[in-house]
């Protein structure tokens, strides 16, 4: 067991990535994720790794592609506007079936937006932010400890399925400090016979490519990728249920808003309202079945988000709109207070009777 230390969420991501065997980081400065790059710039030279501040987010994600093509663990991190710039590269990573870790410490948008925390890139992260049919595995940490744990898990999933894993955090998660314990982990390596390592004159050449000019072939590649996605939806869903056993109302929230929701639940329970929380940890694959299973028990759902209502669509789909789904939200860098969530719970509780 390691010692618990206080770390910022951004630093926890960086340290966990190093423990996971990542030795290549490419990035570009942007608030509120800059600590990831700062940490990497200190540590990488000391462990024989690469820290490179690229000329743009676009260059950074393409450098990630280069390392990923050679079969090594690699990552980049940014915040919302920078992640938009990376979408081209993320689409190529998907089209080339390359594993990589991409971290988005979200801030308010659209456009330059603000620098305060937000969850308004949910759609971009979960619905293919770039062009083409594809998914990323999207992990939503709700504590600094999870920032670390899900980073390690993220690399494992990326390698296992040869695709991008995105950590979808926000400015609060990135900037806050909490006790964290990162054990030295056993790095699970995956064979990558497709990797570009030079033929060594011993095998035919490997090609990493997303171009298929023949439509039937491209269709086939898409079908195969979606078979992989179906497998992931079956076996990799993660979520937390909190006080759900007797809940009449189910809050759905991820990341920082899930923590606010827990405060609100404590206050609502003190008033005798039976409310619980389902916190998706994987945003894709979304815990649809777990939500559906609660639809017969709960009379209403409340999606608590820091956006204009994005995840709420997935909640409605998950329960086939069989119960009312309400939105409790703040945007632009504002964080809903426990009182605001409580007020919504009270109104839904009264209104739904």
């Amino acid at each position, binding site marked *: 067991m390691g010692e*618990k*230390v*206080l770390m910022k969420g951004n630093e926890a991501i960086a340290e966990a990535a190093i423990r996971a065997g990542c030795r290549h980081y490419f990035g570009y400065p942007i*608030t*509120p994720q800059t600590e990831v790059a700062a940490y990497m710039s200190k540590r990488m030279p000391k462990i024989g790794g690469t820290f490179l501040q690229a000329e743009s987010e676009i260059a950074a994600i393409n450098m990630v592609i280069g390392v990923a093509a050679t079969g090594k663990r690699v990552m980049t991190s940014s915040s919302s506007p920078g992640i938009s710039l990376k979408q081209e590269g993320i689409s190529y990573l998907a089209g080339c079936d390359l594993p990589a870790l991409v971290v988005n410490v979200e801030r308010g948008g659209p456009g330059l937006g603000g*620098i*305060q925390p937000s969850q308004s890139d949910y759609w971009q992260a979960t619905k293919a932010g770039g062009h083409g049919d594809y998914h990323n595995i999207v992990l939503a940490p709700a504590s600094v400890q999870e920032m670390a744990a899900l980073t390690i898990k993220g690399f494992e999933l990326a390698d296992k399925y040869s695709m991008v894993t995105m950590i979808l955090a926000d*400015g*609060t998660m990135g*900037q*806050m*400090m*909490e*006790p964290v314990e990162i054990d030295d982990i056993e790095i699970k390596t995956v064979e990558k016979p497709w990797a570009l390592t030079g033929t060594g004159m011993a095998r035919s050449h490997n090609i990493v490519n997303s171009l298929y000019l023949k439509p039937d072939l491209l269709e086939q590649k898409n079908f195969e990728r979606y078979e992989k996605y179906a497998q992931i939806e079956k076996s990799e869903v993660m979520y937390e249920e909190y006080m759900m056993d007797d809940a009449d109302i189910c809050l759905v929230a991820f990341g*920082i808003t899930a*923590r*606010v929701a*827990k*405060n609100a639940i*404590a206050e609502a329970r003190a008033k005798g309202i039976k409310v619980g929380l389902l916190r998706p940890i994987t945003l894709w694959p979304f815990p649809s079945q777990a939500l559906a299973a609660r639809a017969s028990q709960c009379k209403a759902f409340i999606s608590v988000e820091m956006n204009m209502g994005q995840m709420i669509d997935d909640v409605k789909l998950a329960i086939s709109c069989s119960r009312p789904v309400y939105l409790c939200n703040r945007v632009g860098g504002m*964080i809903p*207070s*426990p009182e605001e969530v409580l007020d919504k719970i009270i109104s839904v509780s009264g209104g739904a009777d």
Partner: protein
Amino acid sequence: MSTLNILFAGFGGQGILFSGKFMAYEGLLADKHVSWLPSYGPEMRGGTANCSVIISDEEVGSPIVDKPDVLVVMNLPSLDKYEDAVVPGGKIFVDCSLIERKVERTDVSVYYVPATGLASEKKIPTLANMIITGKMLKELGFSLDSVDAVLGKIVSTRHQDLLSVNKDAIRAGYEL
């Protein structure tokens, strides 16, 4: 105490975040659940800075302190902004070297600490934050036993010379 919500506020450069970190480690070394959340952005460079610290027997929910049990303020705008947010029965620590007005609330305990003045007298002008933190430790019932251990965690190894002055500053506040 099941949960202690502390809000530190002042100007950037006054060591607001450092004081917060000190208290978060006090909690961690006492085996509590803790969180530390800074304001971030342009205000780091001279504007107002604040920092939420939660020390709790239970898992910390939201890390944002909007209703502090304890408010530590080191400039007037912060007192103006947060005075009303303190819970009834809470404590407010005011750096009275920098804030001339009195706290208007009557349902809270107020401690006027001449932290900045004392710091310049003691030739440690950058450590007013630790003097007021020392006073807070005393009034919240913390002992000084863990100070060495906490400072050891947060003072970087390159600046070990700062350990003793920080300790002196905390003690000075504690003994007020």
